[in-house]
């Protein structure tokens, strides 16, 4: 019953978001603010994770490719495809579910508990469209950009680990990157990035917006938002892979 009422509440919140803004300029300002908060706020962690996941991927692939019959370029191909197909969109978005999701749920939860949302409602502002919509749009703008950055840095991390560790020369790695490249993989990764961005921002907004109680409930809402987002990301990952690949 709880699950159904949560789904119903979530859908009603999504519906209520679509209304005419009271003041377009203020909504635009909020969208820009949220885009900077979500994008810039996660830049550092995404960069670090991406470089290391590419590096680890290169070292482990080299470790498993023991046959002298396989060319060294294969390492670059494996790193490229795993980073583009899975690591950059899925792993980064799971991390972002923690970073961005808890931030959104915490911010909205705090606004709810301290009556800031009520204050906006009293002023005659549609709080769902003023507070939630810019967060979702901001995530849809910045998270795919972060995923693209993660792809680039992940592949570069693999090259760095390969050359610094003496696994393969840089030129060989670059040559491998260009071999058997399938552009569809990038589109697939972007489809995942947009889907996951929507899941992270909307689910976290829902839990944050509907907090009841005090500080303890804000913490609980953040945790629930992150867990639910992660599960939905993994489920959506499987569905998209099944449908598109």
């Amino acid at each position, binding site marked *: 019953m709880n699950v159904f009422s949560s789904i119903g509440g979530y859908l009603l919140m999504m519906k209520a978001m679509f209304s005419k803004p009271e003041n377009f300029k*203020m909504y635009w300002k909020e969208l820009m603010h949220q885009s900077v908060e979500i994008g810039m706020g996660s830049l550092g962690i995404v960069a670090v994770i991406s470089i290391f996941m590419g590096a680890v991927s290169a070292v482990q692939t080299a470790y498993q490719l023991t046959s002298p019959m396989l060319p060294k370029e294969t390492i670059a191909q494996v790193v490229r495809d795993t980073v583009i197909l899975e690591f950059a969109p899925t792993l980064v978005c799971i991390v972002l579910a923690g970073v961005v999701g808890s931030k959104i749920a915490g911010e909205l939860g705090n606004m709810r508990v301290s009556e*800031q949302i009520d204050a906006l409602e009293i002023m005659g502002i549609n709080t769902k469209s003023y507070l939630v919509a810019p967060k979702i749009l901001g995530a849809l703008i910045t998270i795919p950009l972060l995923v693209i950055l993660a792809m680039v840095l992940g592949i570069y991390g693999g090259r760095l680990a390969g050359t610094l560790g003496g696994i393969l020369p840089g030129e060989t790695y670059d040559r491998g990157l260009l071999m058997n490249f399938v552009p569809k993989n990038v589109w697939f990764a972007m489809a995942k990035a947009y889907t996951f961005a929507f899941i992270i921002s909307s689910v976290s907004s829902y839990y944050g917006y509907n907090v009841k109680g005090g500080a303890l409930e804000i913490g609980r809402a953040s945790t629930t938002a992150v867990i639910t987002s992660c599960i939905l990301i993994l489920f959506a990952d499987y569905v998209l892979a099944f449908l598109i690949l």
Partner: protein
Amino acid sequence: MIEIKNVSKSFGDKEILKNISAVMNTGMTNLIIGTSGSGKTVLQKCMVGLFEVDSGDIVFDGKDLTTMSEEERKELRQQIGMLFQGSALFDSMTVEENVKFPLDMFTKWPTAKKMERVNDVLERVNLKGTNKKYPSEISGGMKKRVGIARAIVLKPKYLFCDEPNSGLDPQTSMVIDKLIHEITKENEMTTVINTHDMNSVMEIGENILYLYHGKKEWEGTNKDIIFNKNEKLNEFIFASEFLKDAKDMRMLEEKGIIDNDRNMDKIMREGGANLVITDDDKKE
């Protein structure tokens, strides 16, 4: 004027408001008083439309809130200012930005005009020079005053205050009460205040509604309240032993039995509960 007509509200099986009717007069500070859990906040939230009533009407100058469309409610809400118990200031904005927010959202005024209005209201609430401070950098009393400034910046017709004195010292509470009272008179607003602070009741209670377990138990002014005969209201207003003794003393004084000034010293020294009136205490 706001008319509350037979309003009832329940949450689940629990009936919070039971068939309440009252009138909140224009140009007056209308107080809703009662113990914690008596339904004051629920009634006020019903009045501003944050809660839907189960039955009854809430009429703002002839327009019934309960039958209004969402657009009509939006329009009405732009004529409502509200001061929340915890001030509800936006943490990420400065004092100036908090007060300017309603103007940014609902007016197309040039920035200079907006700033003029912001500075005017901040000066009115004695907060000149605090424009660039964040809510975390100012005291509780100042936060309340910023809340008042934000509530009145659009010159609303109706002002709602939910326990404006909670968490404030008696002196600051009095400043806030006086400020709300003055602003009500200056702008000819209909002000509704939830409180259980007896100082506020006596200072600014021009029209008082006493709620007891969700029911209207008494209605009157601050002049009537001390001499009221309602047992439940008397339990509420004379909840402290000191006030009970003060009331007894006042009666004795009125009957010409004692001299109040002399007995006040004795009460302060010995405690009101143990006061024994001796022949020395009686008026000469």
